[in-house]
């Protein structure tokens, strides 16, 4: 599995090619870039994937500083957090695109290999907007020297291998304290994010709401309980409290720092995506893009690496929603129509091996619609739904699910590899 190899092997040796760059990429970086692009093309041609990882992996093997070389000379924004990274990155790239060409890792390959592939693929662009896995933020900041870093949220996600939430926030805080030159765009509604971002002297706050509260009842600074009322939050034992946001989601739109309200029309469903759009506008604002310029571009984004994609097959209109952790399941229920719904759960390496998060999700919103379940860990889901008193039917395959529902909308909500499996059945829909 490439996935495990790249996490272990790819390190960023620094200084090995120091002094060779002076404005142009050193020869080894050029060779690495070329080989990287070829490998990515081969991977796509062979139908092995979208080439968003393998190319970068090979490139970094040849030149460990390749990401730094490729990022040099571009104005870079990084987007990190537990949820909404891929969508926000796509929307931010669209918004920054007002100013010129943007390189971006829009397939969700969010570790250094994916960044390297994305930058190599796009050639020289004045801008880059990169989604970054939260564990790699420090590394990628060192390599790409970003102008802006957007911090979305922190909540529980695959604790069998990921860092716990408070440790993650501490890591961010330490990283940002060492980079006062970076402009930070951060979520005022998430106490963990605010605490981490407060290490930066240049922070722009946005408010997009926080649906998932269970990981921020305790102040990361003082250990005292955090209270919430009327959209505000504050620590009962220290000065940490919700900062006043400059960008605020209100109704179906966003208020900008000047106090102007803009209607946000998206093809992407749900309130949560209005929040992602607000974040994208805030990041693009740091580059000088005005909302009125960016909004028409946001409205053209229809799906992201299969997420929210709609496919017509056998008279069914299938819509794909990705849900990876408790917070994103709540968001998926918010987006989904009251229509027959297929839930698919796996617990392979990229998903995390542990399914106990199923009990952090309240499935009762699904009681009013026919529910089908499938996936490697369908039995875990069956027991969970039984406790939740949600009737369901177990199906062995995606085709069986299609045959089991009447013509019309079928909502599909799946976690990471289950989503990719279904996407493969639908010819890798983007």
């Amino acid at each position, binding site marked *: 599995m490439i996935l495990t190899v790249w996490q272990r092997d790819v390190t960023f040796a620094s200084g090995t090619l120091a002094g060779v760059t002076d404005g142009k990429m050193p020869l080894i970086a050029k060779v690495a870039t070329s080989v990287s692009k070829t490998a990515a093309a081969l991977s796509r041609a062979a139908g092995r994937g979208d080439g968003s990882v393998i190319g970068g992996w090979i490139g970094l093997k040849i030149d460990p500083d390749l990401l730094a070389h490729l990022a040099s000379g571009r104005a870079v924004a990084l987007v990190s957090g537990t949820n909404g990274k891929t969508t926000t990155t796509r929307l931010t790239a669209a918004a920054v695109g007002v100013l010129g060409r943007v390189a971006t890792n829009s397939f969700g390959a969010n570790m250094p290999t994916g960044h390297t592939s994305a930058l190599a693929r796009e050639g020289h662009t004045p801008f880059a907007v990169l989604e970054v896995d939260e564990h790699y933020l420090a590394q990628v900041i060192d390599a790409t020297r970003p102008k802006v870093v957007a911090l979305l949220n922190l909540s*529980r996600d695959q*604790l*069998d*291998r990921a860092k*716990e*939430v*408070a*440790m993650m926030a501490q890591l961010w805080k330490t990283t940002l304290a060492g980079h006062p030159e970076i402009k930070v765009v951060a979520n005022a509604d998430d106490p963990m994010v605010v605490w981490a971002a407060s290490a930066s002297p240049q922070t722009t706050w946005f408010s997009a709401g926080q649906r998932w509260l*269970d990981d921020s*009842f*305790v102040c990361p600074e003082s*250990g005292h*309980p955090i209270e919430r009322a009327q959209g505000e939050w504050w620590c009962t034992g220290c000065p940490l409290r919700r900062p006043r946001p400059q960008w605020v989601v209100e109704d179906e739109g966003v208020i900008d720092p000047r106090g102007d309200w803009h209607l946000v029309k998206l093809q992407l469903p749900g309130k949560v995506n209005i929040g992602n759009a607000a974040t994208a506008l805030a990041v693009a604002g740091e580059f000088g893009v005005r909302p009125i310029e960016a909004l028409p571009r946001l409205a053209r984004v229809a799906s992201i690496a299969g997420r929210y994609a709609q496919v017509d097959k056998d008279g069914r209109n299938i819509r794909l929603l990705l849900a990876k952790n408790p917070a994103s399941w709540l968001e998926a229920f918010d987006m989904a129509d009251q229509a027959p719904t297929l839930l698919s759960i796996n617990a392979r390496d990229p998903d995390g*091996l*542990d*399914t*106990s*998060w*199923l*009990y*952090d999700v309240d499935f009762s919103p699904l009681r009013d619609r026919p529910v089908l379940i499938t996936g490697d860990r369908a*039995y*875990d889901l*069956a*027991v*969970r739904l*039984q*406790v*939740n*008193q949600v009737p369901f039917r177990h199906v062995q395959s995606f085709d069986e699910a299609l045959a089991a529902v009447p013509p019309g909308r079928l909502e599909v909500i799946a976690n990471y590899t289950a989503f990719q499996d279904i996407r493969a059945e639908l010819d890798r829909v983007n």
Partner: protein
Amino acid sequence: MSTEALRIVWIYPDLLSTYGDRGNLLILARRAADRGIPVETYEIRSDQRMPNGADIYLIGGGEDGPQALAAQRLLADGGLHQAVARGASVLSICAGYQLLGHSFYAKGAKCAGLGLLDISSDRGETRAVGELRGDIDPRLGLPPLTGFENHGGRTHVGQHAAPLARVTGGIGNDGQTEGAWAGKILGTYSHGPALARNPAIADLLLRWSTGADRLAPLDDSWTEQLRNERLTAASPARPV
């Protein structure tokens, strides 16, 4: 609190609820309700007094900081000690299990536990992550334990408690034994919603609390399929 209903307390969900720990409360309440046993559930946050008159107490897993804080608050509060003295049942999971013992380690420091279970915990060299399986102490008369473990602790069971199970897959306390029990207190490293895969433990807690010798059977066919799948998935035990 009324006197007729079965009262279940979930201890400090604001501190100890790392992964699906709510599941144990939901499962106990459902299995009681399905038998017509009225249930009242209470979620007691760490800034509230711990009631001492409930029937079943649940305490879950968490990170080091919250674990140490929970132990301090429970020691200062005393409500859980009084409840145990009155004969209440306790199900403790992972960090909650460790803090019922004499001592445990959090953030590199040795912390005083509640001393309700004769166990003590320290740090292992590696983190135990994966499927856990064990044969439960025959005196409890339960089918094999299945769970998912994710912890860095190693636990030693003293003379006044017994291991909950003999490990047949995964690590548990030390690769040999898993969890502990004494009286009506149960502890396990099977983290999160341990009762989802082990409804017989849920029913044991319900029998202890109601005094019933046996409970009406429920349709556990999905749970049985899940148990069979997970018991097969666990790899053999290895000593550590």
